[in-house]
């Protein structure tokens, strides 16, 4: 069976891939053991290790570990397994599923695995935790490392007993010889030894069909720490002698300081004021005193006129970077002859869709604790890119990266919104001036204003369909919102698809599922519009133009569970949407109820069918799918950043509406477990079908077509 969706390359997203400079991991294996104690060390070298191409003239002595490492694992003399990875935990529960992966291959309980994550001193370089990449990339590496450790242990037992290793079995922390019934604990085999093994990322893995730990709904590791309030998030970190920081924010985006008087603030006992260019902040013994000091600063800012959300879409269309593939990232795709196919099609349609800026609003705002020791800097902060933040800090203070350590305690969510290290840099600047550690926690208003937003965008789609429902022409232009998920999985002979880079009036960046949400909203709404024009059932119309078996399977599974095609009552509407993103396949069916008098739109029920290869943790997968749908409700229905002349007007939870308990529909999830396909990440893809499914359902209920996200910030205005 052809699997065309897999042939569509995962396109690098310009708002996401912010690769740091290549990192050369140079450490002698003896240093590892000095730090870890004796035991077994397995290092997973990345494919295409560049050590030999570096031209540095260094010879491989066999004593050095490879320079590009995915992850590493240490099995200590006391039997504890410690796994080191640069990935981080932001609520996706990857700490749990990576522990499962290691426990699986080492045949030990999950509770015996300790994960050290996102600590730039202890873990190998990692670009960051984003793009649903941990499950497909980090998990196999750690599994291979664990499998290699297991084989090494079997080898040790075999030579100790002078038997063939092939007949020995590893289970529950022991190697057993089924013939002699002898067994020995892993820890006893290791005693005093320092064994290193390097494995390559290409080594084989236990097939999903044989999994015993993976594929199970393992509970969140350290769950009791979270329900008792014991876990220390970045904003809960505390070090001795710590001061509290606060920043004076500019009057508007891009504002520059015209004049400043910090005299009164400086006279407050215990307060250190820092004025360095446009940076103005204080460090004080308490948050109250810090706030008082900031209030005592008189500053005048020079503000340039800037666009507002009223002019947003016009602005984006007017500020396109023109030229031949201006982004240079191949974000233009063309096949066949679109104009000719459009001209001869029986049905033609041209529509424009828009999406507004929205905020991630992670419940824990940006936070950091920074501590200097001489010219060495340690920062605890919540970020998806600890190594990226290390680079930011090294750059800001003009010190080598080796002198910066960034630690990432499990953080109060991110959703693509914590790639950057603003709070870390600010806290470190204040700490350097105050000569004491400084903690800085952004206020909610700061997080809404000075982080970055999901890009707004304008999407123009035109299509042509033959009388029998065959799509023959497809043209798709995305202005600004991004290229993720831009390519069509429907089979159309004549296509032109293009992403247009524009100037953005606001600072924009990654957001869970990136532009796939916007592109699927446009594509799947447009498919519904075309189906209505042709006079076909939307599911039938999709089936007719979709060969990809995996996508067809989720559409059919969702439709079946939903009861697609059943009769509806007045005010009720059904809609569907779905697609392919980050190697996952999703289809979503939504039921809405619209009160025509009040304009209230209630999403009543959502059925999601999802397939991402072999399922690692079914309950956590359901949790992610439910969460994607609930988060997606906000952007679909009512979330939008209001801004004017460089200011955010609704940067509070009292004015920026996020989904709450009463907004949540009945959520039903159908999981398709494909043990024959490698596991993909699932934090992003499940949300992309929701907005079009709701929009299509609103049309089904009312005949009103909504082409702008959010769709009903003030309810539905039925003419």
């Amino acid at each position: 069976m052809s699997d065309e969706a897999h042939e569509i390359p995962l396109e690098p997203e310009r708002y996401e891939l912010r690769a740091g400079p290549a990192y050369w991991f140079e450490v002698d294996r003896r240093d590892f053991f000095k730090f870890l104690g004796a035991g077994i060390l397995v290092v997973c070298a990345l494919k295409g290790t560049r050590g030999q191409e570096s031209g540095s003239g260094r010879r491989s002595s066999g004593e050095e570990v490879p320079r590009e490492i995915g992850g590493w694992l240490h099995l200590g003399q006391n039997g504890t397994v410690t796994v080191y990875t640069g990935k981080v935990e932001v609520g996706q529960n990857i700490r749990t599923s990576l522990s499962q992966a290691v426990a699986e291959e080492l045949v030990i309980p999950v509770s015996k695995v300790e994960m050290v994550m996102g600590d730039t001193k202890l873990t190998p370089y990692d670009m960051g935790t984003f793009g649903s990449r941990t499950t497909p990339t980090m998990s196999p590496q750690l599994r291979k490392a664990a499998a290699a450790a297991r084989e090494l242990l079997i080898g040790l037992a075999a030579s100790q007993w002078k038997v063939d290793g092939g007949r020995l079995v590893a289970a529950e922390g022991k190697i057993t010889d089924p013939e002699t019934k002898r067994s020995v604990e892993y820890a006893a085999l290791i005693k005093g030894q320092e064994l290193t093994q390097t494995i390559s990322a290409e080594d084989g893995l236990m097939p999903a069909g044989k999994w015993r730990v993976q594929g199970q709904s393992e509970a969140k590791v350290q769950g009791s720490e979270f329900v008792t309030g014991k876990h220390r998030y970045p904003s809960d970190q505390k070090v001795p002698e710590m001061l509290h920081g606060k920043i004076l924010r500019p009057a508007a985006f891009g504002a520059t300081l015209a004049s400043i008087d910090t005299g009164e603030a400086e006279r407050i006992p215990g307060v250190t004021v820092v004025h360095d260019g446009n940076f103005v902040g204080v460090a004080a013994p308490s948050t109250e005193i810090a706030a008082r000091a900031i209030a005592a600063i008189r500053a005048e800012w020079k503000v340039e006129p800037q666009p507002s959300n009223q002019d947003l879409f016009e602005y984006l269309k007017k500020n396109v970077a023109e030229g031949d593939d201006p982004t240079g990232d191949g974000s233009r795709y063309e096949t066949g002859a679109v104009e000719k196919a459009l001209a001869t099609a029986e049905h033609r349609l041209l529509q424009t869709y828009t999406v507004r800026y929205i905020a991630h609003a992670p419940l824990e705002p940006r936070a950091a604790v920074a501590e200097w020791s001489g010219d060495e800097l340690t920062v605890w902060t919540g970020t998806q890119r600890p190594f990226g933040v290390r680079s930011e800090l090294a750059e800001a203070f003009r010190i080598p990266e080796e002198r910066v350590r960034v630690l990432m305690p499990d953080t109060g969510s991110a959703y693509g919104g914590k790639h950057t290290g603003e709070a870390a840099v600010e806290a470190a600047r204040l700490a350097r001036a105050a000569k004491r550690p400084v903690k800085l926690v952004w206020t909610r208003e700061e997080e809404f204003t000075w982080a970055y937003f999901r890009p707004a965008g304008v999407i123009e789609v035109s299509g042509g369909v033959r009388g029998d429902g065959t799509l023959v022409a497809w043209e798709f232009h995305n202005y600004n919102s991004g290229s993720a998920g831009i390519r069509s999985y429907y089979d159309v002979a004549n296509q032109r698809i293009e992403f247009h880079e524009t100037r953005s009036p606001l600072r924009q960046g990654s957001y869970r599922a990136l532009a796939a949400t916007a592109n699927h909203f446009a594509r799947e709404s447009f498919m519904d519009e075309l189906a209505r024009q042709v006079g076909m059932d939307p599911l039938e119309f999709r089936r007719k133009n979709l060969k990809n078996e995996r996508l067809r399977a989720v559409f059919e599974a969702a439709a079946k569970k939903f009861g697609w095609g059943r009769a509806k009552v007045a005010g009720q509407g059904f809609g569907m949407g779905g697609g392919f993103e980050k190697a996952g396949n999703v289809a979503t069916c939504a039921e809405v109820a619209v009160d025509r008098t009040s304009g209230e739109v209630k999403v009543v029920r959502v059925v999601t069918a999802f397939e991402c290869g072999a399922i690692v943790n079914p309950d956590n997968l359901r949790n992610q799918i439910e969460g994607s749908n609930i988060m997606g409700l906000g952007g679909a229905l009512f979330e939008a950043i209001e801004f004017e002349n460089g200011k955010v007007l609704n940067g509070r939870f009292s004015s920026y509406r996020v989904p709450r308990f009463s907004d949540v529909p009945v959520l039903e999830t159908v999981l398709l477990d494909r043990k024959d396909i490698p596991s993909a990440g699932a934090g992003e893809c499940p949300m992309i079908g929701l907005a079009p499914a709701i929009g299509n359902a609103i049309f089904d209920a009312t005949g009103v077509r909504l082409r702008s996200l959010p769709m009903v910030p003030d309810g539905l205005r039925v003419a």
Partner: protein
Amino acid sequence: MAKVTQLNVNGSWRTVDADADASLLVVLRDQLDLTGSKYGCGEGQCGACTVLINGSARRSCITQVGTIGQKQITTIEGLAKGDRLHPVQEAFLAQAAMQCAYCTSGMIMSAVALLKANNNPTEGEIRHFMEGNICRCGTHPRIVAAIRSAAEEMKHS
């Protein structure tokens, strides 16, 4: 300004040094190192800072310490009895009613207050009561299920 020097927190009197208009959340976190109560908005809109005051749910971020007097404050740290978790904490674990879990303390404290006032809430009553608590990860259905199952559990114990 009048000073507050003592607060009754989790069953014992604790010494603090705060202006009467200081936020209870800041005093709990910065002076008593009880960091289980979280900052999420500072305007009583997200519920991450929820504590019990004489058994009722209160947003500690907008509660001035000067208004508390002799009243008893319970934070997430004071909910378990030794190693024995409160049934609501157990239910949150059993239902996997969390992702990043930053909202969890506030959710649990709100839920405990709800069950104190209404030991058999309907799903609608739960949603209504919990409306002021934000979960950005979207674990709402699991939280509702956890509160329902805790209610059942508490009825039988």
